[in-house]
C-alpha cells in the first residue's frame, strides 16, 4: 500500500464518538472538511457505514463453476466469494479459523478446497473445515464444526449482483437495496438474454484521496465540461463514447467553453434515500445511433424481447446509478464500478466492463474497448477525475475554511411520483446531500 508521507494528519483530530459531535459535521448544504481528512472518522466509517450497509461484493459470473473463487475486501476485511458444489454462492471471511492467516491469496481461481498455507487446515467451498493435520493433537472437545470459515453474516444476490452485510442486524436487503433494483434491471435488461457476465477483465485505479470523492463524482454532472475540458473539442463536443454514436454529447457552447449547453443543464438527478441515486437522460437509441455493431445488437434484442420491449429498453431513464456506499452502475459506457476505501486519503477502484449475454461479440467488445479509453487508469476521462480527487484532498488540508459546499439546488428539490424519488438538477448537488444524509444516519446509529 502506498501512503504519501507528506499527507498531513489532522492535528486537531480528537475523539468524536458522540452522536452530537458527529451531527455537527453535516449541515444543510455543507459538510465539515474532517469527513474527508480525519483518520478517526475514517475508522468510524469502516465500522458504522461499511460495517452496516449492504455492500456490493462481486458478480456471480465471476465464480461460474463449483470450486471457483474470487477474493476482495469489504470494509478492508479480506473475504472470498465461492461457488459450492450445490451451486450456491458463499461469501466467507478469508481468515483461517486457527491462527488467522489469509487462506486464499489469489485474486481469483479454482480450487476443490481452500487450504491454509500455515498448518494445512483445509476448508470446503462452503467454508466447512474438512482437514486438520495431526488431529490427535487437538485439545479435548475440539470440534471441526466450530471452526469453519466464518460466513459474512448476510448475503443476497439480485440478478447476479452479490451483496453482503457485515452485520446480522440492521435493515433488510429489501429495505436497503430494494429501491435500486430497477437500476440493476436497467442494465441487465439490455442483455438480449437478460443476463450479464463480468468476464472481460477489469481496470483498477487508485488515488491519494478519500473514498467519498469518487462516490460523489459519479452523480456530479456539474464537473463534466470543466473537469474533462481536455476531452471537449472547440465545438463544445466531447469525443464519442458509445458504439454507434457519430460524435459525443455537446456539453458546452461553441462560443463559450465555460457555458454548459441547455441540454446538459436540463438533465436531472434523482435520490431515493439510503444515499442511493441516479442521473437521467441517456437514451441508448435516439434513432440516429447506428453502426454495424449497434444495429446487430438492436436486432438481437428485438429477436429476444420483441420490438416494443426493445424500444423501452433502449430508451432508459438512467445515466449513472449509485448504490451507496460502494458500487455504481454506469449506463453511458456500460460498466460497474466498485469503490474500496484503503485509508482516509487512499482509495482503490475496480471498473468492470460487462458483457451483455446474447449481444453480438462486436457490440460487447466494442463497449469494452471504449472503456479502455474512458475509464482505464490510462484513460482520457478518468485520469482528470483522479487529478480532481487528489487536488481536493490536498486543498482540504487548508484550515482556511472548515466547510465544503454542496448547496447547489438546495431548496429547489421536487417530489417525483413516477419514481417515488426526489428530483433536482443534475448539475446541482442533490445527490451529495442525499449521500451525507445517509452517512449521518449510519454514523449516528448507536453502536
Amino acid at each position, binding site marked *: 500500500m502506498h501512503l504519501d508521507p507528506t499527507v498531513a494528519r489532522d492535528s486537531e483530530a480528537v475523539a468524536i464518538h458522540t452522536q452530537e459531535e458527529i451531527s455537527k459535521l453535516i449541515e444543510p448544504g455543507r459538510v465539515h472538511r474532517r469527513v474527508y481528512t480525519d483518520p478517526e472518522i475514517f475508522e468510524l466509517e469502516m465500522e458504522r457505514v461499511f460495517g452496516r450497509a449492504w455492500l456490493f461484493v462481486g458478480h456471480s459470473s465471476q465464480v461460474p463453476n463449483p470450486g471457483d473463487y474470487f477474493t476482495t475486501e469489504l470494509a478492508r476485511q479480506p473475504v472470498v466469494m465461492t461457488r459450492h458444489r450445490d451451486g450456491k454462492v458463499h461469501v466467507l471471511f478469508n481468515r483461517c479459523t486457527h491462527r488467522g492467516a489469509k487462506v486464499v491469496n489469489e485474486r481469483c481461481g479454482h480450487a476443490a478446497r481452500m487450504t491454509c498455507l500455515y498448518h494445512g487446515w483445509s476448508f470446503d467451498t462452503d467454508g466447512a473445515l474438512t482437514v486438520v493435520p495431526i488431529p490427535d493433537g487437538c485439545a479435548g472437545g475440539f470440534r471441526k464444526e466450530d471452526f469453519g470459515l466464518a460466513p459474512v453474516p448476510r448475503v443476497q444476490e439480485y440478478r447476479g449482483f452479490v451483496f453482503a452485510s457485515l452485520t446480522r442486524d440492521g435493515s433488510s436487503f429489501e429495505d436497503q437495496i430494494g429501491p435500486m433494483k430497477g437500476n440493476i434491471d436497467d442494465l441487465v435488461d439490455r442483455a438480449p438474454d437478460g443476463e450479464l457476465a463480468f468476464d472481460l*477483465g*477489469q481496470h483498477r485505479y487508485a488515488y491519494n484521496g478519500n473514498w467519498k470523492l469518487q462516490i460523489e463524482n459519479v452523480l456530479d454532472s456539474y464537473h463534466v465540461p470543466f473537469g474533462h475540458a481536455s476531452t471537449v473539442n472547440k465545438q463544445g463536443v466531447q469525443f464519442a463514447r458509445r458504439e454507434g454514436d457519430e460524435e459525443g454529447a455537446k456539453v458546452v457552447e461553441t462560443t463559450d467553453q465555460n457555458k454548459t449547453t441547455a441540454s446538459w443543464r436540463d438533465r436531472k438527478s434523482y435520490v431515493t434515500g439510503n444515499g442511493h441515486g441516479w442521473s437521467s437522460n441517456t437514451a441508448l437509441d435516439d434513432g440516429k445511433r447506428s453502426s454495424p455493431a449497434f444495429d446487430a445488437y438492436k436486432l438481437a434484442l428485438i429477436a429476444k424481447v420483441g420490438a416494443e420491449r426493445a424500444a423501452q429498453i433502449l430508451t432508459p431513464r438512467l445515466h449513472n446509478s449509485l448504490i451507496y456506499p460502494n458500487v455504481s452502475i454506469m449506463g453511458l459506457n456500460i460498466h460497474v464500478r466498485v469503490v474500496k476505501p484503503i485509508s482516509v486519503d487512499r482509495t482503490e477502484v475496480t471498473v468492470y466492463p460487462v458483457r451483455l449475454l446474447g449481444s453480438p461479440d462486436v457490440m460487447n467488445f466494442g463497449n469494452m474497448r471504449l472503456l479502455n479509453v474512458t475509464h482505464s487508469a490510462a484513460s*482520457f476521462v478518468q485520469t482528470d477525475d483522479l487529478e480532481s480527487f487528489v487536488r481536493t484532498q490536498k486543498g482540504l488540508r487548508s484550515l482556511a475554511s472548515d466547510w465544503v459546499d454542496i448547496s447547489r439546488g438546495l431548496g429547489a428539490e421536487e417530489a417525483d411520483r413516477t419514481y417515488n424519488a426526489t428530483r433536482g438538477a443534475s448539475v446541482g448537488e442533490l445527490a451529495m446531500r442525499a449521500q451525507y444524509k445517509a452517512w449521518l444516519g449510519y454514523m449516528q446509529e448507536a453502536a
Partner: protein
Amino acid sequence: MDTAAATAASSSASPAREVLELFLIREAKLLDERRFREWMELFAEDGAYWVPAAPNQESPFNHASLFYDDRTLMKTRIDRLEHPRIHIQTPPSRTAHLVGNTLIEEIDAAKGEVVVSSTVMMVEYRDDSQRTFAGRQFHRLRHTDDDYKIVLKRVNLINCDSAFDAMAVPI
C-alpha cells in the same frame, strides 16, 4: 535460419541488433522529450500501441487493456496531451526511459517484419512524486525504405494488473 530469412536479416534486420536497438532508443527519446506527434509517426498507418491489463493477455479485442490505441485513438490521446486544460498533466510528467536486454524474437522475411523484445524501465516524475514502470516490451517492426515502422508495440508491465494512480503518458 534459412537463406531467405538470412537475406532478410542482412538487408532489413542485420546489422540487426544494433540498428533495432537504435530505433528503440530513438523512440524512447521522443517520448522523454514529449515529442508525441513524432512518436506517433513512428507507427505504421495500421500500427497499434498496446499495454495489456493482465499477465499473458492473449488479445486486446476481448479483454480490457490499459492502453490499446490504433492511430486514430493515438491522435485523440495526443490532441488531449497537448490540450491546455489537461489537468492530469498540469504540471506535465517528466520521464526517463531505459531500454536494454534487446533480443530479436522473430524474423518474418515474407512480410519484411521483425519482432524485437527489450526490457523497458520508465521513471516518471510529476507534481512532487516519482514512480517507476518496468516490463518487457515487444516491437513488431516493418522494414520500409531505409527505416522501420511500428506495426505493434506491446508493453508487458510487471504490475499490469495492479491498481495504478492515473497514467497520462505512454510508456
